[in-house]
Protein backbone atom coordinates (compact mmCIF):
# COMPACT_ATOMS: atom_id res chain seq x y z
CA UNK A 1 0.00 0.00 0.00
CA UNK A 2 1.13 3.53 -0.72
CA UNK A 3 0.90 6.61 1.47
CA UNK A 4 -0.70 8.38 -1.44
CA UNK A 5 -2.09 6.91 -4.63
CA UNK A 6 -3.62 9.01 -7.35
CA UNK A 7 -5.08 7.74 -10.57
CA UNK A 8 -6.31 9.70 -13.52
CA UNK A 9 -6.85 12.75 -11.32
CA UNK A 10 -8.54 15.55 -13.24
CA UNK A 11 -9.74 18.99 -12.28
CA UNK A 12 -11.68 21.28 -14.55
CA UNK A 13 -12.64 24.87 -13.85
CA UNK A 14 -15.22 25.45 -16.55
CA UNK A 15 -13.34 25.13 -19.83
CA UNK A 16 -9.94 25.13 -18.19
CA UNK A 17 -8.35 21.81 -17.36
CA UNK A 18 -6.12 22.69 -14.42
CA UNK A 19 -5.08 19.09 -13.76
CA UNK A 20 -5.25 16.66 -16.62
CA UNK A 21 -5.57 13.03 -15.62
CA UNK A 22 -2.39 12.68 -13.60
CA UNK A 23 -1.16 9.41 -12.09
CA UNK A 24 1.36 9.11 -9.30
CA UNK A 25 1.99 7.53 -5.95
CA UNK A 26 4.04 8.33 -2.86
CA UNK A 27 5.64 5.54 -0.86
CA UNK A 28 5.63 5.56 2.92
CA UNK A 29 8.63 7.46 4.24
CA UNK A 30 9.33 9.19 0.96
CA UNK A 31 9.76 12.86 0.10
CA UNK A 32 7.89 13.39 -3.13
CA UNK A 33 8.00 16.68 -4.98
CA UNK A 34 5.80 18.32 -7.57
CA UNK A 35 8.03 20.61 -9.59
CA UNK A 36 6.41 22.98 -12.02
CA UNK A 37 6.08 26.58 -13.16
CA UNK A 38 3.31 29.00 -12.13
CA UNK A 39 -0.14 27.82 -13.04
CA UNK A 40 1.00 24.23 -13.57
CA UNK A 41 -1.73 22.87 -11.31
CA UNK A 42 0.31 22.21 -8.17
CA UNK A 43 -1.98 23.96 -5.70
CA UNK A 44 -5.07 22.59 -7.40
CA UNK A 45 -3.68 19.07 -7.00
CA UNK A 46 -2.83 19.59 -3.33
CA UNK A 47 -6.28 21.03 -2.68
CA UNK A 48 -7.89 17.91 -4.07
CA UNK A 49 -5.59 15.70 -1.99
CA UNK A 50 -6.41 17.47 1.27
CA UNK A 51 -10.14 17.90 0.68
CA UNK A 52 -10.39 21.59 -0.15
CA UNK A 53 -11.28 20.96 -3.77
CA UNK A 54 -13.41 18.35 -5.42
CA UNK A 55 -11.93 16.27 -8.19
CA UNK A 56 -13.67 16.27 -11.56
CA UNK A 57 -12.55 12.71 -12.25
CA UNK A 58 -10.14 10.10 -10.97
CA UNK A 59 -9.40 8.35 -7.70
CA UNK A 60 -7.45 9.44 -4.64
CA UNK A 61 -6.33 7.24 -1.81
CA UNK A 62 -4.56 8.88 1.13
CA UNK A 63 -3.08 6.63 3.84
CA UNK A 64 -5.34 3.89 2.57
CA UNK A 65 -8.49 6.03 2.75
CA UNK A 66 -10.38 6.51 -0.51
CA UNK A 67 -11.92 9.85 -1.38
CA UNK A 68 -14.44 11.29 -1.10
CA UNK A 69 -16.03 8.82 1.37
CA UNK A 70 -13.14 8.47 3.79
CA UNK A 71 -11.88 12.04 3.51
CA UNK A 72 -12.38 12.82 7.19
CA UNK A 73 -10.51 9.65 8.15
CA UNK A 74 -7.61 10.72 5.97
CA UNK A 75 -7.66 14.25 7.36
CA UNK A 76 -6.78 12.91 10.81
CA UNK A 77 -3.49 11.59 9.48
CA UNK A 78 -2.39 14.47 7.30
CA UNK A 79 -0.89 17.85 8.01
CA UNK A 80 -1.19 20.74 5.59
CA UNK A 81 1.03 23.77 5.04
CA UNK A 82 -0.79 26.02 2.56
CA UNK A 83 0.99 28.37 0.15
CA UNK A 84 -0.10 31.34 2.26
CA UNK A 85 -0.14 31.28 6.03
CA UNK A 86 -3.70 31.02 7.25
CA UNK A 87 -3.39 31.21 11.00
CA UNK A 88 -5.23 33.69 13.18
CA UNK A 89 -3.70 37.16 13.16
CA UNK A 90 -4.95 38.18 16.58
CA UNK A 91 -3.82 35.05 18.37
CA UNK A 92 -0.30 34.43 19.64
CA UNK A 93 2.00 31.75 18.25
CA UNK A 94 1.30 29.46 21.16
CA UNK A 95 -2.48 30.02 21.06
CA UNK A 96 -2.52 29.30 17.35
CA UNK A 97 -0.76 25.99 17.90
CA UNK A 98 -2.97 24.83 20.77
CA UNK A 99 -6.05 25.90 18.83
CA UNK A 100 -4.94 23.84 15.83
CA UNK A 101 -4.33 20.89 18.14
CA UNK A 102 -7.85 21.17 19.53
CA UNK A 103 -9.24 20.77 16.01
CA UNK A 104 -7.79 17.26 16.17
CA UNK A 105 -9.34 16.58 19.55
CA UNK A 106 -6.14 17.15 21.51
CA UNK A 107 -6.84 18.84 24.85
CA UNK A 108 -4.75 21.82 25.88
CA UNK A 109 -2.89 20.00 28.64
CA UNK A 110 -1.44 17.64 26.02
CA UNK A 111 -0.99 20.13 23.21
CA UNK A 112 0.80 22.84 25.15
CA UNK A 113 4.02 20.90 25.87
CA UNK A 114 4.09 19.72 22.27
CA UNK A 115 3.49 23.27 21.04
CA UNK A 116 6.35 24.57 23.17
CA UNK A 117 8.64 21.88 21.76
CA UNK A 118 7.74 22.88 18.23
CA UNK A 119 8.24 26.56 19.02
CA UNK A 120 11.72 25.70 20.27
CA UNK A 121 12.45 23.55 17.27
CA UNK A 122 11.56 26.37 14.88
CA UNK A 123 13.32 29.07 16.92
CA UNK A 124 10.04 30.78 17.73
CA UNK A 125 10.08 30.33 21.47
CA UNK A 126 10.98 33.95 22.11
CA UNK A 127 7.97 35.19 20.20
CA UNK A 128 5.50 32.56 21.36
CA UNK A 129 3.28 35.13 23.07
CA UNK A 130 3.36 37.68 20.28
CA UNK A 131 0.39 38.05 17.98
CA UNK A 132 0.78 36.15 14.71
CA UNK A 133 0.29 39.34 12.71
CA UNK A 134 3.49 40.76 14.25
CA UNK A 135 5.58 37.87 12.88
CA UNK A 136 7.92 38.25 9.92
CA UNK A 137 7.20 36.29 6.77
CA UNK A 138 9.76 33.64 7.63
CA UNK A 139 8.41 33.30 11.17
CA UNK A 140 4.87 33.03 9.85
CA UNK A 141 5.84 30.22 7.51
CA UNK A 142 7.65 28.39 10.28
CA UNK A 143 4.68 28.67 12.62
CA UNK A 144 2.41 27.45 9.84
CA UNK A 145 4.60 24.38 9.50
CA UNK A 146 4.60 23.87 13.26
CA UNK A 147 0.79 24.14 13.22
CA UNK A 148 0.62 21.44 10.57
CA UNK A 149 2.76 19.17 12.75
CA UNK A 150 0.96 19.69 16.04
CA UNK A 151 -1.10 16.50 15.74
CA UNK A 152 1.86 14.42 14.54
CA UNK A 153 0.60 13.67 11.04
CA UNK A 154 2.06 10.72 9.14
CA UNK A 155 1.79 12.50 5.82
CA UNK A 156 2.65 16.17 5.44
CA UNK A 157 1.58 18.32 2.49
CA UNK A 158 3.49 21.52 1.81
CA UNK A 159 2.63 23.98 -0.94
CA UNK A 160 5.75 25.96 -1.87
CA UNK A 161 7.20 25.78 1.64
CA UNK A 162 10.12 28.14 1.05
CA UNK A 163 8.85 30.58 -1.55
CA UNK A 164 8.96 34.26 -0.66
CA UNK A 165 10.93 33.99 2.56
CA UNK A 166 14.49 34.82 3.58
CA UNK A 167 17.38 32.45 2.90
CA UNK A 168 18.04 31.60 6.55
CA UNK A 169 14.44 30.63 7.24
CA UNK A 170 14.27 28.66 4.01
CA UNK A 171 17.39 26.75 4.97
CA UNK A 172 16.04 26.03 8.43
CA UNK A 173 12.77 24.80 6.97
CA UNK A 174 14.58 22.46 4.59
CA UNK A 175 16.65 21.16 7.48
CA UNK A 176 13.59 20.53 9.63
CA UNK A 177 11.80 18.80 6.79
CA UNK A 178 14.76 16.46 6.31
CA UNK A 179 14.77 15.69 10.04
CA UNK A 180 11.07 15.09 10.03
CA UNK A 181 11.37 12.72 7.10
CA UNK A 182 14.19 10.84 8.79
CA UNK A 183 11.87 10.34 11.73
CA UNK A 184 9.34 8.67 9.48
CA UNK A 185 7.02 11.38 8.17
CA UNK A 186 6.07 11.04 4.53
CA UNK A 187 6.23 14.34 2.70
CA UNK A 188 4.51 15.66 -0.41
CA UNK A 189 5.65 19.10 -1.45
CA UNK A 190 5.31 21.41 -4.39
CA UNK A 191 7.93 23.84 -5.49
CA UNK A 192 9.11 25.81 -8.43
CA UNK A 193 12.68 25.81 -7.14
CA UNK A 194 14.58 23.13 -9.00
CA UNK A 195 17.34 23.22 -6.42
CA UNK A 196 14.88 22.61 -3.61
CA UNK A 197 13.42 19.61 -5.36
CA UNK A 198 16.93 18.32 -6.00
CA UNK A 199 18.00 18.69 -2.37
CA UNK A 200 14.89 17.53 -0.61
CA UNK A 201 13.06 15.03 -2.75
CA UNK A 202 13.55 11.32 -3.18
CA UNK A 203 11.35 11.40 -6.24
CA UNK A 204 10.13 14.25 -8.37
CA UNK A 205 7.28 14.71 -10.81
CA UNK A 206 7.56 17.48 -13.38
CA UNK A 207 4.16 19.05 -13.82
CA UNK A 208 3.46 21.45 -16.65
CA UNK A 209 0.07 22.83 -17.60
CA UNK A 210 -1.80 20.15 -15.73
CA UNK A 211 0.21 17.21 -17.06
CA UNK A 212 2.90 15.19 -15.34
CA UNK A 213 5.57 15.02 -18.01
CA UNK A 214 8.14 12.96 -16.13
CA UNK A 215 8.43 11.20 -12.77
CA UNK A 216 11.46 9.61 -11.15
CA UNK A 217 14.28 9.84 -8.68
CA UNK A 218 16.76 12.61 -9.34
CA UNK A 219 19.20 9.99 -10.64
CA UNK A 220 16.62 8.48 -12.95
CA UNK A 221 15.67 11.86 -14.34
CA UNK A 222 19.34 12.60 -14.98
CA UNK A 223 19.99 9.26 -16.63
CA UNK A 224 17.26 9.87 -19.08
CA UNK A 225 19.09 12.97 -20.08
CA UNK A 226 22.57 11.52 -19.82
CA UNK A 227 22.32 9.33 -22.89
CA UNK A 228 24.46 12.05 -24.42
CA UNK A 229 27.82 12.73 -22.82
CA UNK A 230 29.92 15.86 -22.98
CA UNK A 231 33.55 16.46 -22.11
CA UNK A 232 35.23 19.81 -22.03
CA UNK A 233 39.00 20.24 -22.58
CA UNK A 234 40.88 23.39 -21.67
CA UNK A 235 44.21 23.75 -23.50
CA UNK A 236 47.28 25.92 -23.18
CA UNK A 237 46.97 27.64 -26.55
CA UNK A 238 44.18 29.19 -28.54
CA UNK A 239 42.65 26.79 -30.99
CA UNK A 240 42.76 27.07 -34.72
CA UNK A 241 40.82 25.01 -37.18
CA UNK A 242 38.85 22.08 -35.75
CA UNK A 243 38.59 20.06 -38.96
CA UNK A 244 41.64 17.85 -38.34
CA UNK A 245 40.56 16.82 -34.85
CA UNK A 246 37.02 16.26 -36.10
CA UNK A 247 38.45 13.98 -38.79
CA UNK A 248 40.41 12.04 -36.19
CA UNK A 249 37.29 11.45 -34.11
CA UNK A 250 34.41 11.11 -36.56
CA UNK A 251 32.04 9.51 -33.99
CA UNK A 252 31.86 12.67 -31.89
CA UNK A 253 30.66 16.22 -32.35
CA UNK A 254 33.35 18.76 -31.57
CA UNK A 255 32.78 22.45 -31.04
CA UNK A 256 34.58 25.42 -29.54
CA UNK A 257 33.53 26.20 -25.98
CA UNK A 258 35.88 29.16 -25.56
CA UNK A 259 39.04 30.61 -26.94
CA UNK A 260 41.17 27.80 -25.57
CA UNK A 261 38.59 25.19 -24.82
CA UNK A 262 36.53 22.76 -26.80
CA UNK A 263 33.56 20.58 -26.08
CA UNK A 264 33.17 17.03 -27.28
CA UNK A 265 29.74 15.45 -27.39
CA UNK A 266 29.00 11.83 -28.05
CA UNK A 267 26.10 9.44 -27.81
CA UNK A 268 28.47 6.85 -26.37
CA UNK A 269 30.65 7.49 -23.36
CA UNK A 270 33.74 9.47 -24.27
CA UNK A 271 37.08 7.77 -23.73
CA UNK A 272 39.53 10.47 -22.63
CA UNK A 273 42.79 8.69 -23.43
CA UNK A 274 42.75 8.89 -27.26
CA UNK A 275 42.06 12.61 -26.98
CA UNK A 276 44.98 13.13 -24.59
CA UNK A 277 47.24 11.27 -27.00
CA UNK A 278 45.99 13.31 -29.91
CA UNK A 279 46.64 16.64 -28.13
CA UNK A 280 50.11 15.43 -27.09
CA UNK A 281 50.80 14.44 -30.67
CA UNK A 282 49.90 17.88 -32.07
CA UNK A 283 51.84 19.65 -29.29
CA UNK A 284 48.98 20.98 -27.20
CA UNK A 285 49.01 20.77 -23.43
CA UNK A 286 45.83 19.88 -21.59
CA UNK A 287 45.16 22.02 -18.53
CA UNK A 288 41.85 20.50 -17.62
CA UNK A 289 39.46 17.83 -18.80
CA UNK A 290 35.96 17.93 -17.42
CA UNK A 291 33.03 15.58 -17.86
CA UNK A 292 29.92 17.73 -17.98
CA UNK A 293 27.00 16.34 -16.03
CA UNK A 294 23.62 17.80 -16.72
CA UNK A 295 22.01 19.48 -13.75
CA UNK A 296 18.43 18.77 -12.78
CA UNK A 297 17.77 22.18 -14.20
CA UNK A 298 19.06 21.13 -17.64
CA UNK A 299 16.79 18.14 -17.48
CA UNK A 300 13.85 20.24 -16.40
CA UNK A 301 14.35 22.89 -19.05
CA UNK A 302 14.86 20.25 -21.66
CA UNK A 303 11.82 18.22 -20.71
CA UNK A 304 9.41 21.04 -20.02
CA UNK A 305 10.73 23.13 -22.90
CA UNK A 306 9.56 20.45 -25.27
CA UNK A 307 6.23 20.34 -23.56
CA UNK A 308 5.89 24.09 -23.65
CA UNK A 309 6.40 23.95 -27.40
CA UNK A 310 3.70 21.34 -27.68
CA UNK A 311 1.43 23.48 -25.56
CA UNK A 312 1.31 26.17 -28.21
CA UNK A 313 -0.61 23.93 -30.57
CA UNK A 314 -2.66 22.49 -27.79
CA UNK A 315 -6.22 23.64 -27.27
CA UNK A 316 -5.64 23.99 -23.56
CA UNK A 317 -2.93 26.49 -24.28
CA UNK A 318 -5.48 28.76 -25.88
CA UNK A 319 -7.28 29.28 -22.60
CA UNK A 320 -4.30 30.74 -20.86
Amino acid at each position, binding site marked *: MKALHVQNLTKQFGDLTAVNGVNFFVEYGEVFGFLGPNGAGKTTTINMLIG*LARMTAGTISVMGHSYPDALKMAQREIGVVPD*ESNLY*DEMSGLENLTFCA*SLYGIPRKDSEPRALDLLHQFDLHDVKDKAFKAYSKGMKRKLTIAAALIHKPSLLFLDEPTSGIDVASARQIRYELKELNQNGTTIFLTTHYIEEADRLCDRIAFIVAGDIVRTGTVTELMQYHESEQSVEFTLDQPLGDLSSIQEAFPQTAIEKAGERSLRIRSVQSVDLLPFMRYFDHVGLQVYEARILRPSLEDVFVNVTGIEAEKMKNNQRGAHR
Partner: protein
Amino acid sequence: MNAWIAFLSILKKDMQNYYLKPPNISWGILFPIAWTLMFFLRSEAAITIRDLLPGVISLSILFGTTSMLAVTITFEKKSRAFERLLLAPISLNLLMLAKTSGAILFGIGGAAVPTILAAFLTDLSGVAWGSVLIGVVLIALTSTFLGLFIAVSVKEVFEAQTFSNFFRFPMVFLCGLFIPLTHLPLFLRPVSYLLPLTYGNDLLSSAITGAHLLPNTLNLGMLLLFSLGLFFMSTRNIRRKWIL
Protein backbone atom coordinates in the same frame (compact mmCIF):
# COMPACT_ATOMS: atom_id res chain seq x y z
CA MET B 1 -11.33 11.38 18.48
CA ASN B 2 -13.07 13.77 20.78
CA ALA B 3 -14.91 16.11 18.42
CA TRP B 4 -16.28 18.11 21.34
CA ILE B 5 -12.81 19.41 22.12
CA ALA B 6 -12.80 20.91 18.64
CA PHE B 7 -16.35 22.19 19.04
CA LEU B 8 -15.72 23.95 22.34
CA SER B 9 -12.38 25.28 21.20
CA ILE B 10 -13.87 26.87 18.06
CA LEU B 11 -16.67 28.37 20.16
CA LYS B 12 -14.22 29.71 22.71
CA LYS B 13 -11.95 31.17 20.07
CA ASP B 14 -14.84 32.97 18.36
CA MET B 15 -16.02 34.28 21.71
CA GLN B 16 -12.59 35.65 22.56
CA ASN B 17 -11.72 36.90 19.10
CA TYR B 18 -15.03 38.38 18.08
CA TYR B 19 -18.00 38.31 20.41
CA LEU B 20 -16.41 39.54 23.60
CA LYS B 21 -14.58 42.39 21.90
CA PRO B 22 -15.75 45.83 23.14
CA PRO B 23 -17.53 46.90 19.93
CA ASN B 24 -19.60 43.72 19.96
CA ILE B 25 -20.36 43.90 23.63
CA SER B 26 -21.67 47.40 23.12
CA TRP B 27 -23.64 46.29 20.08
CA GLY B 28 -25.05 43.33 21.95
CA ILE B 29 -25.94 45.14 25.17
CA LEU B 30 -26.16 48.87 24.63
CA PHE B 31 -28.14 48.52 21.46
CA PRO B 32 -30.96 46.51 23.06
CA ILE B 33 -30.90 48.91 26.02
CA ALA B 34 -31.30 51.84 23.67
CA TRP B 35 -34.15 50.15 21.78
CA THR B 36 -35.83 49.17 24.97
CA LEU B 37 -35.68 52.55 26.63
CA MET B 38 -36.78 54.27 23.46
CA PHE B 39 -39.86 52.10 23.14
CA PHE B 40 -40.69 51.73 26.80
CA LEU B 41 -40.32 55.35 27.82
CA ARG B 42 -42.30 56.68 24.91
CA SER B 43 -45.10 54.20 25.13
CA GLU B 44 -48.43 55.69 25.98
CA ALA B 45 -50.80 54.26 28.46
CA ALA B 46 -52.69 52.32 25.79
CA ILE B 47 -49.60 50.33 24.84
CA THR B 48 -47.95 48.93 27.89
CA ILE B 49 -44.35 47.90 28.32
CA ARG B 50 -45.56 44.35 28.51
CA ASP B 51 -47.16 44.67 25.08
CA LEU B 52 -43.93 45.98 23.63
CA LEU B 53 -41.64 43.45 25.26
CA PRO B 54 -42.00 40.58 22.72
CA GLY B 55 -41.17 42.90 19.82
CA VAL B 56 -38.20 44.42 21.60
CA ILE B 57 -36.85 40.98 22.50
CA SER B 58 -37.26 39.80 18.90
CA LEU B 59 -35.54 42.89 17.62
CA SER B 60 -32.60 42.52 20.01
CA ILE B 61 -32.03 38.93 19.00
CA LEU B 62 -32.42 39.62 15.29
CA PHE B 63 -29.86 42.41 15.29
CA GLY B 64 -27.52 40.73 17.73
CA THR B 65 -27.14 37.54 15.74
CA THR B 66 -27.41 38.14 12.01
CA SER B 67 -24.51 40.54 11.64
CA MET B 68 -22.06 38.40 13.62
CA LEU B 69 -21.79 35.72 10.97
CA ALA B 70 -20.44 38.25 8.47
CA VAL B 71 -17.34 38.35 10.66
CA THR B 72 -17.04 34.83 11.97
CA ILE B 73 -17.74 33.20 8.62
CA THR B 74 -17.31 35.55 5.66
CA PHE B 75 -14.25 37.29 7.07
CA GLU B 76 -12.56 34.03 8.03
CA LYS B 77 -13.32 32.63 4.61
CA LYS B 78 -11.73 35.64 2.99
CA SER B 79 -8.66 35.50 5.21
CA ARG B 80 -8.43 31.76 4.50
CA ALA B 81 -8.48 30.83 8.18
CA PHE B 82 -11.71 29.01 7.41
CA GLU B 83 -9.76 26.53 5.27
CA ARG B 84 -7.99 25.37 8.39
CA LEU B 85 -11.37 24.55 9.91
CA LEU B 86 -12.43 22.70 6.77
CA LEU B 87 -9.26 20.59 7.06
CA ALA B 88 -10.14 19.51 10.58
CA PRO B 89 -11.33 15.91 10.87
CA ILE B 90 -14.78 16.90 12.10
CA SER B 91 -18.01 16.86 10.15
CA LEU B 92 -19.11 20.02 8.39
CA ASN B 93 -22.32 20.02 10.43
CA LEU B 94 -20.48 20.01 13.73
CA LEU B 95 -18.09 22.66 12.45
CA MET B 96 -20.96 24.95 11.43
CA LEU B 97 -22.74 24.39 14.72
CA ALA B 98 -19.55 25.42 16.49
CA LYS B 99 -19.25 28.48 14.28
CA THR B 100 -22.85 29.53 14.93
CA SER B 101 -23.30 28.64 18.58
CA GLY B 102 -21.44 31.80 19.60
CA ALA B 103 -23.96 33.93 17.74
CA ILE B 104 -26.84 31.94 19.17
CA LEU B 105 -25.59 32.50 22.72
CA PHE B 106 -24.96 36.14 21.90
CA GLY B 107 -28.55 36.48 20.70
CA ILE B 108 -29.92 34.84 23.83
CA GLY B 109 -27.81 37.18 25.95
CA GLY B 110 -29.17 40.11 23.95
CA ALA B 111 -32.70 38.98 24.75
CA ALA B 112 -31.97 39.12 28.44
CA VAL B 113 -31.31 42.86 28.31
CA PRO B 114 -34.86 44.10 27.54
CA THR B 115 -36.34 41.38 29.72
CA ILE B 116 -34.39 42.49 32.77
CA LEU B 117 -35.12 46.16 32.10
CA ALA B 118 -38.81 45.41 31.72
CA ALA B 119 -38.80 43.49 34.98
CA PHE B 120 -37.68 46.65 36.73
CA LEU B 121 -40.13 48.91 34.98
CA THR B 122 -43.30 46.89 35.14
CA ASP B 123 -45.01 43.91 36.69
CA LEU B 124 -44.25 40.75 34.71
CA SER B 125 -46.24 38.29 36.77
CA GLY B 126 -48.08 35.64 34.81
CA VAL B 127 -45.50 35.45 32.06
CA ALA B 128 -44.90 31.86 30.90
CA TRP B 129 -41.12 31.97 31.31
CA GLY B 130 -40.53 28.48 29.98
CA SER B 131 -42.24 29.41 26.73
CA VAL B 132 -40.34 32.69 26.60
CA LEU B 133 -37.08 30.78 26.84
CA ILE B 134 -38.12 28.37 24.09
CA GLY B 135 -39.19 31.31 21.93
CA VAL B 136 -35.93 33.17 22.56
CA VAL B 137 -33.81 30.14 21.72
CA LEU B 138 -35.73 29.42 18.54
CA ILE B 139 -35.61 33.03 17.38
CA ALA B 140 -31.86 33.03 18.09
CA LEU B 141 -31.49 29.81 16.07
CA THR B 142 -33.47 31.00 13.04
CA SER B 143 -31.89 34.47 13.03
CA THR B 144 -28.40 33.03 13.32
CA PHE B 145 -28.98 30.50 10.58
CA LEU B 146 -30.47 33.22 8.40
CA GLY B 147 -27.26 35.18 8.99
CA LEU B 148 -25.28 32.03 8.21
CA PHE B 149 -27.16 31.50 5.00
CA ILE B 150 -26.35 35.05 3.94
CA ALA B 151 -22.73 34.77 5.08
CA VAL B 152 -22.04 31.66 2.99
CA SER B 153 -23.84 33.02 -0.05
CA VAL B 154 -21.55 36.03 -0.52
CA LYS B 155 -17.84 36.67 -0.95
CA GLU B 156 -17.20 39.98 0.78
CA VAL B 157 -17.88 41.03 4.35
CA PHE B 158 -19.67 44.20 3.27
CA GLU B 159 -21.98 42.13 1.06
CA ALA B 160 -22.91 39.99 4.03
CA GLN B 161 -23.69 43.09 6.06
CA THR B 162 -25.68 44.72 3.29
CA PHE B 163 -27.68 41.58 2.64
CA SER B 164 -28.47 41.01 6.27
CA ASN B 165 -29.81 44.56 6.49
CA PHE B 166 -31.80 43.88 3.37
CA PHE B 167 -33.52 41.10 5.28
CA ARG B 168 -33.75 42.36 8.79
CA PHE B 169 -35.08 45.89 8.36
CA PRO B 170 -38.18 44.71 6.48
CA MET B 171 -38.54 41.98 9.11
CA VAL B 172 -38.97 44.63 11.78
CA PHE B 173 -42.15 45.75 10.03
CA LEU B 174 -43.36 42.54 8.48
CA CYS B 175 -43.12 40.14 11.39
CA GLY B 176 -45.63 41.69 13.75
CA LEU B 177 -43.03 43.11 16.10
CA PHE B 178 -44.69 46.49 16.52
CA ILE B 179 -47.33 46.50 13.82
CA PRO B 180 -49.77 43.62 14.24
CA LEU B 181 -49.96 41.43 11.16
CA THR B 182 -53.66 42.15 10.92
CA HIS B 183 -52.85 45.83 10.32
CA LEU B 184 -50.60 45.05 7.35
CA PRO B 185 -51.88 45.53 3.82
CA LEU B 186 -53.31 42.28 2.58
CA PHE B 187 -50.73 41.82 -0.22
CA LEU B 188 -47.85 41.93 2.29
CA ARG B 189 -49.19 39.28 4.58
CA PRO B 190 -48.01 36.26 2.55
CA VAL B 191 -44.51 37.71 2.80
CA SER B 192 -44.84 37.81 6.59
CA TYR B 193 -45.55 34.13 6.67
CA LEU B 194 -42.33 33.43 4.75
CA LEU B 195 -40.27 35.02 7.50
CA PRO B 196 -39.33 32.93 10.55
CA LEU B 197 -39.47 35.86 12.93
CA THR B 198 -43.24 36.10 12.43
CA TYR B 199 -43.63 32.74 14.15
CA GLY B 200 -41.02 33.50 16.80
CA ASN B 201 -42.59 36.80 17.73
CA ASP B 202 -46.03 35.25 17.87
CA LEU B 203 -44.69 32.60 20.23
CA LEU B 204 -43.19 35.27 22.48
CA SER B 205 -46.38 37.33 22.47
CA SER B 206 -48.35 34.33 23.50
CA ALA B 207 -45.96 33.65 26.40
CA ILE B 208 -45.75 37.26 27.56
CA THR B 209 -49.11 38.86 26.84
CA GLY B 210 -51.26 35.87 26.01
CA ALA B 211 -52.20 37.38 22.66
CA HIS B 212 -51.32 35.39 19.56
CA LEU B 213 -52.42 34.87 16.02
CA LEU B 214 -51.32 31.33 15.32
CA PRO B 215 -51.42 28.12 17.33
CA ASN B 216 -48.24 27.62 19.32
CA THR B 217 -47.63 24.19 17.84
CA LEU B 218 -47.63 25.74 14.39
CA ASN B 219 -45.21 28.42 15.58
CA LEU B 220 -42.90 25.83 17.08
CA GLY B 221 -43.08 23.62 14.03
CA MET B 222 -42.36 26.45 11.62
CA LEU B 223 -39.41 27.69 13.69
CA LEU B 224 -37.87 24.23 13.79
CA LEU B 225 -38.46 23.83 10.09
CA PHE B 226 -36.81 27.17 9.32
CA SER B 227 -33.85 26.33 11.57
CA LEU B 228 -33.20 23.01 9.91
CA GLY B 229 -33.87 24.32 6.42
CA LEU B 230 -31.58 27.33 6.69
CA PHE B 231 -28.84 25.31 8.35
CA PHE B 232 -28.80 22.60 5.74
CA MET B 233 -29.07 25.04 2.87
CA SER B 234 -26.03 26.80 4.32
CA THR B 235 -23.90 23.68 4.66
CA ARG B 236 -24.95 22.65 1.18
CA ASN B 237 -23.80 26.03 -0.11
CA ILE B 238 -20.46 25.62 1.62
CA ARG B 239 -19.96 22.22 0.06
CA ARG B 240 -20.97 23.49 -3.36
CA LYS B 241 -19.30 26.86 -3.44
CA TRP B 242 -16.37 26.75 -1.06
CA ILE B 243 -15.05 23.28 -1.70
CA LEU B 244 -14.45 24.02 -5.35
